[in-house]
C-alpha cells in the first residue's frame, strides 16, 4: 500500500512535468499542443542516441533537452507562426499533423524496438521505514521535477520574461500594443514547454523504456493532468499529476488489470462535469 503510494508519487511527478509544458503553452499561447507527446518521445530518443554516442548520462540528458528545445523553436517559426491568427481548430489540426509526422518519422529513424537507457545510479535502491523501496533514480527524478517547478514559479513570478508571459495571458493584443515582442514570447514559451516535455521523456524513459510510440499515451496523460488541475495553472499541473499518479497506482492494485488506463479518463469526465475549469483553473474559461 505504502509502496504503491510512493510509486504513484514518483510517476505522478513525471506526469506533472509533462503537463507543466502543455499547460504553459496553452495558458500563454492558447495552443492545444497535440504534438506535445512527440517532444516527450524525442527527449527520450535523443537521450538514448546521445548515450549511444558515449556521452555520460547527465550530459546526454542536457543535450537531449537542448536539441528538442531548438527543434521546437524551429517548429514554432515554420508551422505555428503562419497560424498566429487562425482559429483553435485549425491550430489543433496543425499540431495533430505535426504529431503524426514526428512520431512516424521517429519510427523510421529509430525503429519500433523499445530501447533501454542505463540508469546512472546502477539501479541502487533506497529503503524507507523498511517498507518502501525506491531507486536512487526515482529520487533524483522527483527532486529534479521539484527544482523545475520551483524554477518555473520563480521565472513566471519575478522575472521580466515571466511578466511578459503573464501580460500575454491577460490580453495578447494589449501586450503587443505596449511594445512587447510577441513573436519572441511565442518562441520562448513554446520551446520551453516542449523542452520540459523532453526532460520528462528522458526521466520517465530511463525508468521505463524508450520507443517512438511512447508519445501518444504521454500526451493523453498530460491532458488528464491539465484538465484535472486546470489549463494554464502551475500548481494545478503538480497537484493533477500527483492525483493521477496516485490514483493509477492505487487503482491498479484494486481494479482488474485491463482497466488501469481507464482511471484517468473517468477522472477527466468527472472533473469536467463537476468543475469544468479544473481544480485550480481560472474562471475565464468559456463553458456553458
Amino acid at each position, binding site marked *: 500500500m505504502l509502496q504503491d503510494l510512493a510509486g504513484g508519487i514518483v510517476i505522478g511527478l513525471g506526469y506533472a512535468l509533462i503537463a507543466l509544458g502543455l499547460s504553459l503553452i496553452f495558458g500563454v499561447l492558447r495552443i492545444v499542443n497535440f504534438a506535445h507527446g512527440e517532444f516527450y518521445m524525442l527527449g527520450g530518443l535523443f537521450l538514448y542516441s546521445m548515450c549511444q554516442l558515449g556521452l555520460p548520462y547527465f550530459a546526454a540528458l542536457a543535450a537531449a533537452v537542448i536539441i528538442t528545445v531548438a527543434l521546437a523553436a524551429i517548429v514554432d517559426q515554420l508551422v505555428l507562426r503562419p497560424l498566429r491568427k487562425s482559429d483553435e*481548430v485549425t491550430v489543433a489540426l496543425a499540431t*495533430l*499533423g505535426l504529431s*503524426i509526422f514526428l512520431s512516424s*518519422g521517429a519510427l523510421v529513424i529509430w525503429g519500433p524496438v523499445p530501447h533501454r537507457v542505463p540508469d546512472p545510479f546502477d539501479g541502487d535502491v533506497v529503503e524507507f521505514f523498511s517498507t518502501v523501496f525506491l531507486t536512487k533514480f526515482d529520487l533524483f527524478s522527483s527532486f529534479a521535477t521539484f527544482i523545475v517547478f520551483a524554477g518555473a514559479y520563480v521565472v513566471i513570478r519575478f522575472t521580466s520574461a515571466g511578466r511578459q508571459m503573464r501580460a500575454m495571458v491577460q490580453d495578447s493584443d494589449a501586450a503587443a500594443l505596449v511594445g512587447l515582442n510577441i513573436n519572441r514570447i511565442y518562441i520562448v514559451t513554446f520551446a520551453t514547454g516542449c523542452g520540459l516535455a523532453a526532460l520528462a521523456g528522458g526521466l520517465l524513459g530511463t525508468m521505463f523504456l524508450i520507443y517512438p510510440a511512447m508519445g501518444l499515451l504521454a500526451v493523453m496523460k498530460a*491532458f488528464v493532468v491539465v484538465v484535472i488541475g486546470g489549463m494554464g495553472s502551475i500548481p494545478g499541473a503538480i497537484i493533477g499529476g500527483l492525483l493521477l499518479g496516485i490514483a493509477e497506482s492505487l487503482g491498479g492494485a484494486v481494479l482488474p488489470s*485491463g482497466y488501469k488506463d481507464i482511471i484517468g*479518463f473517468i477522472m*477527466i469526465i468527472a472533473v469536467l462535469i463537476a468543475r*469544468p475549469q479544473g481544480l485550480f483553473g481560472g474562471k475565464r474559461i468559456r463553458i456553458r
Partner: protein
Amino acid sequence: MMARALVSAAIVAAVMLGFVLPSLLDSYAFRLVIFSMIYSLLAIGLNINLGFRGELSLGHQTFFGVGAYVSAIAATAWTLPLIVLIPLAGVFAGIAGFAVGLIALRMRGPYFVIVTLSVGVIAQIIATNWVELTNGPMGISGVGTAPESWLGFATPIHTEVICYQILLFLIVATSWVTHALKRSHYGRAWRALQDHEDLAAAIGIRPFALDMPALMISASICGLAGAVYAFYTSIVAPDDVFSFNIVITMLVAVVLGGRGTVAGPILGAFIFTFVPEYLRVAQEWRLPIFGLALLLLVLLAPEGIVAWLGRIKRLLSAKRNATTGAV
C-alpha cells in the same frame, strides 16, 4: 438544374460502374474502392460536426465502433441480415452520440476535443475488457461470411458488388441529408453559431438544442459505416474499430476535401486512400508524409479542395466575362 442533372448522371454512372468494377480492377484495388467508400461515409458523418458546427472531435471512431459491434453482435447472435442491421447500428450510434453529447456538449474548443478523445479511449478499453459481450481483444469474427447474410436472401450477385451498392446508396443518402441540412434552418443556425456564438444566442438560437442533433446525426452516419465495415471485413476487433487512426483518417479526409462542403468529404476520402497507395513511396515513409501533408494542407489550403476548385472556377468565369465584356 444543370448541377442536378450532373449529380443524377454521376449517381447512375456510379451504380453501373459497381457491376463492372470487380472485373476491371484487381481485388486489391477494389478493396481500396470499398474502403474509400467506408471512409467517405465516416467523413460525411464527421463533417456535420466539424464542418457545420466547427467543433473538432477526436472521438468519432467510438460511433464507428459502436455501429460495427452492434451489427457484429446481432449478426452472430440472431443471424440478422445486414440491411436490417444498418438502421439498427445507426440508431445505436445515435444513442451513443446522445450520451456523449450530454457531457461533451457542455464544453467548447479544446475541452470538447479532450472529452471526445477520452470517450474514444474509454470505449476501446471497455470493448477490450468486456469479454462476455465483445469477445475481448480477439474480437468477433465470421460476420457476414454467408452470402445470404447481406440482404437476407441468396442472390447470384457477388457480395462485393452488393457491398459497393449498399455503400453507394448510403453515401448518396447521407450526402443528400448533408445538402438538405446545409440549406435548412438548422444549417443557417449552425453557421450563425460558428460565426459568433454569443450573438447567435442573443437572437434566440439555442446552442445546446442545435448541437445535439448535429452530433447525433453525425454519430449515426459513422454507425452506418461501422455496420458495413463489420460485414465487409467479417471481423470486428477493438484495436481496429476503436483505433485512433480511424478518426485521423476521417479528419484528414474532411479537411482535405473541404470542411462544411457536401462533396468534399467524399473527394477527400478517395484521395487520401488512393494517392498514398499509388505514390509508390517507400512503405515506411508513408505515414510521415501523411503527417506532413496534413500540416501543409492546414498551412496552405485550410479550406480544402472543393473551395479551391470553386475559386479556380470563379477566376475562369471572371476572365471569360472580362474578355467578352459581359456582366
